[in-house]
């Protein structure tokens, strides 16, 4: 493997300028609305310097510290998913002429190339899954594909996981192991830069970096190791399909349903959830119509509705669907678990339901009734 | 049967093109109005009572629901009253954003009233869609201005009816420059529309009806009053808003759910004409020039100049909103911290239809102990009845019923009465009789 280069912190703007000059719109983390969210980045000073996040199930607060670090927080409410799998988008447009003839046209925007900086290992793992789902299954999704082709990823190895993170237990982090163009390790005074693709190599060459000394690499490695070591939550390893389905009548499903709001937040923040629904938006004059797709969730009644029946009418069944899919069925569909250990569903659940805790209870011996 | 002994009873069972539900009953006996009742039968909604015990932060969301046409006014008067009670001062920049918010409401409400409710009267149409056939450009201009007003409110409140952005102490959030840039552009483009609107309203065939009345409006030291802490009248009143109850009274009449207002026991006028009559000198020079070009002089005693006054305020709102957005008032936090306490406070702002006065008493934990709200339409109600008597007399009581009815409706609509606020408006019953 090539030796990482060293980018002094003051030169981070060089990277941003380079990206912009190469035609990318640069998206990165910013402090807004009380959280670290992904927005357009103008300059390195837009990044959340000295910001860390204190979080637990259903709550988080941003803490300001006296530190130059710009990536010393775990992950924001969203990262790559909304960039590629849009929360709402138009799929096709149809015009109707005076004779009632229809002409269909795909809504074909050519997206601008986007560079996202600050991507975490869990997000990359989730991206791999979405690539499998949207690009490599029987049908390829052209909308996702177009955006994916124009995406450049600048990953950052995680050094400050939240208490809700458990990527170490799913094997997806905290170190990014591939699928990025550039990888950064953040140190006090700058970044180690590793390239992971030809495009990344070009960028890194253009930055003309000096190779990082061993000592620096060692500090970075240790920081990531520590980030793995401090994680306390875990998921049981392996394919849980059979075990979960064996426990399909476990009383815990009802118990969790007493707390669950069936609001769908966990699915919306989950970087691997992919459900969507479609509907038409028609102007009043009725001369055209736009067919749209938007995020849906297995926690809605519409998700399992067929005429005259909501198959999963009870919250108990909806939660069971989510969890058994994520940790069970997923293995059969994608060859791995649907959870990358990002902890978002725990953090952003308004009532703090914790997937790791629920699985832990469910995995105890089945209770027969 | 001799003509002079005729007795007529006119009933307008439901007044159309007014906001809310009301009726008008007139009895004419021997060329004399013997009975005239503007009946507001919007059922009482008892807002003042159910505010009791509510947290002060809930007040803006609840009082907005008194009136869908001027929710900003309700939110702003309430905010002012509660901020006074809690002795907090909002920063000047927040105040500027509130003025902008208010500009949106004036623009929306006035454009709606001029085009959808009032102008059809003067041009002989029943509705705006009818009028659009003959005056498409004018109607479209009006709709554009109305939309601009709505969009300003949306900028600060997410929606124009019952907006959600305002709170006691400021706003929940304020827009960034890139969010309002397109709006600023549209505002600049609207100056011409608004100027043309003023001239157009001045050119409408408005009846000539000079009357004697007392105008009441807020006095704002810094400009044309939307906010202000003193109330002035054309008869020399000059009081702090807290003193309102000492001078103004409300009384109930048996035929109406809206309480009638009196200043020292006599009817008075609030709203655009009253404001312009008292504060025209405070308008920017550029607006005054447009007024001069109309040939109409304010103060005016012609009640029908209300529509022109409204158009002038549209122009003012467009200019004021442009000024504010160009200055881009910067704030550190959109809302100041509030420390509730047991106290009382009054607030009064200029709703599109005139002064809207609120007073709250609070408990130590910030909950409302009592509330009093005096909306503009109930203040105008006695004045409308007085005007109707004069106007119909001047119009000629011997005219046939449809003409009398239309004229009466025109007079009433001219006030842009908002019966939803007043609680709500109009069904006309004219009774004529001979002895």
């Amino acid at each position: 493997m090539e030796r990482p280069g060293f980018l002094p912190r003051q030169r981070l703007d060089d990277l941003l300028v380079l990206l912009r000059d190469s035609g990318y719109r640069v998206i990165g983390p910013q402090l807004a609305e009380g959280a670290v969210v992904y927005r357009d980045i103008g300059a390195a000073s837009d990044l959340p310097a000295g910001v860390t996040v204190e979080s637990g199930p259903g709550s988080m607060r941003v803490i300001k510290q006296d530190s130059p670090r710009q990536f010393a927080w775990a992950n924001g409410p969203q990262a790559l998913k909304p960039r590629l799998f849009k929360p709402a988008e138009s799929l096709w447009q149809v015009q109707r002429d005076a004779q009632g003839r229809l002409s269909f046209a795909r809504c074909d925007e050519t997206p601008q190339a986007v560079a996202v900086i600050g991507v975490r290992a869990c997000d990359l793992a989730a991206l791999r899954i979405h690539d499998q789902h949207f690009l490599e299954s029987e049908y390829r999704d052209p909308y996702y594909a177009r955006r994916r082709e124009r995406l450049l990823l600048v990953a950052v190895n995680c050094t400050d996981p939240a208490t809700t993170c458990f990527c170490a237990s799913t094997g997806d982090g905290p170190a990014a192991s591939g699928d990025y163009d550039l990888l950064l390790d953040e140190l006090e005074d700058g970044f180690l830069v590793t390239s992971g693709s030809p495009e990344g190599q070009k960028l890194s060459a253009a930055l003309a970096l000096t190779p990082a000394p061993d000592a620096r690499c060692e500090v970075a490695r240790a920081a990531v190791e520590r980030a793995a070591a401090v994680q306390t939550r875990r998921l049981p390893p392996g394919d849980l399909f059979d075990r979960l389905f064996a426990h399909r009548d476990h009383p815990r499903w009802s118990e969790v349903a007493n707390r669950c709001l069936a609001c769908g937040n966990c699915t919306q923040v989950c970087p691997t959830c992919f459900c969507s629904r479609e509907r038409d938006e028609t102007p009043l004059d009725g001369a055209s119509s736009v067919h749209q797709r938007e995020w849906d969730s297995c926690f809605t009644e519409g998700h399992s509705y067929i005429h005259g029946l909501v198959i999963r009418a009870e919250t108990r069944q909806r939660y069971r669907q989510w969890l058994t899919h994520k940790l069970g069925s997923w293995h059969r569909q994608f060859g791995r678990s649907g959870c990358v250990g990002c902890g978002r569903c725990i953090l952003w659940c308004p009532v703090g339901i914790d997937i790791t805790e629920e699985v832990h209870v469910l995995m105890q011996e089945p209770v027969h009734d | 049967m001799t003509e002079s002994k005729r007795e007529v009873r006119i009933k307008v069972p439901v007044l159309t093109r007014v906001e809310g539900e009301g009726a008008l009953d007139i009895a004419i006996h021997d060329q004399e109005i013997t009975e005239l009742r503007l009946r507001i039968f919007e059922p009482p909604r008892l807002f003042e009572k159910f505010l009791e015990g509510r947290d002060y932060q809930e007040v803006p969301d609840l009082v907005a629901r008194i009136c869908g046409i001027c929710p900003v006014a309700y939110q702003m008067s309430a905010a002012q009253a509660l901020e006074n009670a809690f002795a907090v001062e909002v920063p000047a920049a927040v105040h500027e954003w509130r003025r902008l918010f208010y500009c949106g409401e004036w623009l929306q409400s006035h454009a709606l009233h001029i085009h959808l409710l009032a102008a059809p009267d003067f041009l002989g149409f029943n509705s705006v869609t009818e009028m659009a056939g003959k005056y498409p450009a004018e109607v479209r201009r009006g709709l554009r201005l109305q939309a601009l007003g709505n969009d300003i409110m949306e900028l600060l409140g997410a929606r124009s009816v019952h907006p959600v952005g305002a709170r006691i102490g400021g706003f929940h959030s304020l827009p960034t420059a890139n969010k309002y840039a397109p709006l600023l552009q549209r505002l600049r483009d609207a100056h011409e529309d608004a100027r043309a609107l003023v001239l157009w309203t001045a050119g409408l065939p408005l009846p000539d009806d000079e009357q004697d009345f007392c105008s009441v409006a807020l006095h704002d030291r810094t400009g044309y009053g939307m906010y202000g802490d003193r109330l002035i009248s054309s008869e020399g009143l000059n009081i702090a808003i807290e003193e309102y109850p000492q001078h103004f009274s409300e009384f109930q009449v048996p035929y109406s759910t809206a309480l009638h207002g009196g200043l020292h026991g006599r009817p008075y006028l609030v709203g655009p004409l009253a404001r312009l009559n008292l504060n025209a000198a405070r308008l920017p020079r550029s607006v005054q020039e447009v007024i001069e070009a109309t040939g109409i002089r304010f103060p005016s005693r012609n009640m029908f100049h209300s529509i022109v006054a409204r158009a002038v305020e549209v122009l003012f709102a467009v200019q004021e909103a442009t000024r504010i957005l160009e200055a881009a008032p910067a704030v550190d936090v959109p809302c100041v911290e509030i420390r509730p306490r047991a106290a009382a406070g009054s607030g009064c702002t200029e709703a599109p239809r005139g002064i809207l006065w609120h007073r709250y008493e609070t408990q130590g934990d910030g909950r409302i102990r009592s509330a009093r709200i005096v909306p503009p339409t109930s203040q105008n109600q006695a004045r409308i009845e007085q005007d109707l008597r004069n106007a119909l007399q001047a119009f000629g009581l011997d005219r046939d019923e449809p003409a009398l009815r239309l004229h009466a409706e025109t007079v009433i609509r001219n006030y842009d009465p908002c019966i939803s606020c007043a609680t709500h408006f109009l069904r006309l019953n004219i009774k004529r009789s001979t002895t």
Partner: protein
Amino acid sequence: MTERGIPMEAEVVARVDESPTIFSLSLKLVDGDQHDSYRFMPGQFNMLYLYGVGEIPISIVGDPDQPDLLQHTFRTVGRVTRGFARLQPGDRIGLRGPFGRGWPLEAARNRDVLIVTGGLGCAPVVPVINHVLNQRQQHGRVAILQGVKHSDDFIWRGRYEQWDAEPDTQVLLAADVAGPEWRGYRGRVTGLFEKLELDFVNGITMMCGPGPMMTAAGQQLLERGAGPDRIWFSLERNMQCAVGQCGHCQYGEKFVCRDGPVFPYADIQHLFGVRGI
């Protein structure tokens, strides 16, 4: 790998009202190339798009050997189907498809075939019946069972009579609740199994209908020695995309639109009949 497409324009060329709430539309793709290259398998479905209203999955009931006559039978149940119910010849709609995997026609060759349907006009199996009967000599005995809740719900009397007339073909009808005119069986469709002269062990069953009926029938067939790989079901789930991406049709680890809608019992045994899956 195919790209997820957009609808093709289709024209309604004929309409038949089967009952007050059931009607069939014959469609023709307007574009000549699309029309010529369109092929489908019995059991597959199309996504039909009603202009400005929505897109719904509907089985193709035509004959796969005559793909230019694309037939669909609709039951008017809700928003979109009610809109479709108003279409007349000449009207245009959108069509995406075909989607899904069809019935196991190959596996049915040279074997006894049992077709069980429940509910009103079970469209997905009609093309199979047509196909099997068109190639009558390639199959063993054939039995067609149809169950309805109420005898008045029974449609396609003519078709059933025609099928009944085929050689070595049994057609049996059951109604849970029957009017005085009813000449068929009174009771559940599963009650007809004992009247069948079929080789349950080596034959193949294709079934579609309400969940409880299929669960009960599947159970009884297993008891009669049928292997779980010889009992096939057509399932219904909410579908938005039909290409396995929207997630709505998930059934355990299956995507019904892509992996089904037709499944052998063996593949779904662990899920079948469980409420809320």
